[in-house]
């Protein structure tokens, strides 16, 4: 079991719509909070990885943190950015380049579905694909769950129960964006976006930042933050035989999906089994993917979600609490920051200091999972 990297501090600039503050300033705020949590200073940080879609060069943050000469590298892997920031910071420490590092995700987005922009060149997709209206992520989310419901008997009620749970968690979480619980009726009466998914089955783009301080596990005791260990982290891109976001075609011969591949590799390298996971933060761009990802991560059998969710198994008091802070549904998605929000939440839940949405039992091990265009996923396993 890998036991060489510790997370000793986490910070969050609560997600939402923040017109009066720049993404860079939100990132600085999250970084300062993480340093305070760890009980160290910017001058202690020896390496940094920063993720953002909207900020071209986030190393400009050093202007507001300190010109210490620290190497700050930008990474962007769509929705999978956050987990990969943590993984690369850990790898830099493992490579002996630093003892203490920071990873920061920060972003700010306009309202509405993400647009590829005028030219399709940066997506690797042909221009006609954008012209005819196929570069719309909700179409993919809808089509994947549509097939999954057909294959595994997931009902529309299970979609809505998942949204009810998310907004209920958001209501409890002081840092969430959506603080109002929604009834099943309100959700079922919201606008149909892409069948079978309605408005309140989806998250929205939002603004925010999150950060984590990572160090060599053997020096973690020097700092005040209760260490949580990074047991494994895996980042993978897609193979040929899975339906993935914005794919013009895929092979009829099924292959393992990116999320499943990342999870299998992470469990194997951690020497931890899916049955040992106490708490889950997984990519819930919409309810369908929360449901499917639970099985892709190996936490439940395909189809088992129907009974699990009906019986409240994924709620705060259930046997497998999922997206305890309200997930993407209640927090929205600043893409570069979203994965580190998950890390922030799992660290605080494992420490037992999450707040009003704390799971009321002893938690030892958690998993974080992000997935996004063009079929990339990152999984981390964290434990006390």
């Amino acid at each position, binding site marked *: 079991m890998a036991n060489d990297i510790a997370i000793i501090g986490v910070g969050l600039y609560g997600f939402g719509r923040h017109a009066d503050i720049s993404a860079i300033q939100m990132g600085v705020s999250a970084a300062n909070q993480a340093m305070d949590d760890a009980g160290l200073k910017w001058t202690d940080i020896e390496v940094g990885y920063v993720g953002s879609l909207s900020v071209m060069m986030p190393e400009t943050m050093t202007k507001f943190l300190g010109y210490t000469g620290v190497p700050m590298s930008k990474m962007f892997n769509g929705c999978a950015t956050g987990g990969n920031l943590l993984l690369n910071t850990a790898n830099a420490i493992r490579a002996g380049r630093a003892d203490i590092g920071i990873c920061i995700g920060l972003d700010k987005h306009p309202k*509405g*579905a*993400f*647009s*590829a*922009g*005028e*030219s*399709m060149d940066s997506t690797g997709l*042909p*221009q*006609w694909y*954008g*012209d*005819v*209206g*196929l*570069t*719309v992520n909700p*179409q993919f989310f*809808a*089509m*994947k769950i*549509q*097939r999954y419901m*057909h294959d595994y008997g997931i009902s529309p009620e299970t979609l809505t129960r998942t949204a009810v749970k998310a907004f209920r968690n958001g209501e409890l979480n002081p840092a969430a964006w959506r603080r109002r619980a929604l009834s099943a009726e309100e959700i079922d009466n919201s*606008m*149909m*976006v*892409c*069948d*079978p*998914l309605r408005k309140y089955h989806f998250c929205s783009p939002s603004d925010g930042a999150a950060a984590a301080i990572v160090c060599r596990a053997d020096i973690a005791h020097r700092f005040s933050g209760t260490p949580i260990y990074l047991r494994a982290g895996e980042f993978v891109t897609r193979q*040929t035989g899975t*339906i993935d976001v914005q*794919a*013009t*075609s*895929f*092979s*009829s*011969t099924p292959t393992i999906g990116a999320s499943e591949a990342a999870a299998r590799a992470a469990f194997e390298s951690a020497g931890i089994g899916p049955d040992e996971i106490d708490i889950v933060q997984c990519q819930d761009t919409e309810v369908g993917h929360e449901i499917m990802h639970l099985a892709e991560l190996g936490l439940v059998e395909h189809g088992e979600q129907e009974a699990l969710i009906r019986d409240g198994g994924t709620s705060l008091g259930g046997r497998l609490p999922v997206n305890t802070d309200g997930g993407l549904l209640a927090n929205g998605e600043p893409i570069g920051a979203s994965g580190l929000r998950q890390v922030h939440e799992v660290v605080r839940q494992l420490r037992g200091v999450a707040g009003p949405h704390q799971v009321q039992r002893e938690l030892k091990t958690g998993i974080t999972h992000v997935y996004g265009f063009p079929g990339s996923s990152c999984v981390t396993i964290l434990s006390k």
Partner: protein
Amino acid sequence: MTSNGNTQIPIAEGLFTWPSPAPQLIGGQCSDCKAVHFPKQDNCQACAGREVVALPLSRRGKLWTWTIQNFVPPIPPYTGPVEGFKPFGVGYVELPDGLVVEGRLTVNDPAMLKIGMDMELVLEPFRIDAQGNEVLNYAFAPVAG
């Protein structure tokens, strides 16, 4: 030429056989591992081989999944009608050539769509361009009967 006097042009060259009484999508097949993808590109996505030949794809297949796009897609890149926008179907159709292809559907009524149903390739007018040409795109239509 259409009845309105517009010249018809395909939305992209090399996407489907045109003109043709029975148009086919043009995929790419790896000379080495024989895997097929769409649209044709210069390398194989399965084995990373760099020799790919054009393969006209079967016109019929089975609906693998579907949805309805109920709102105007983000502009850009969308160039279709906005005034009087009509929701459109989107789906993946599994072809006997060993791949599942994404495309627009000719129908937008959920009651008319069922996973596993037979679908057929058609060309349909998408928009009129600045030169007055009628731009044709491919779509999948339920097979009658």
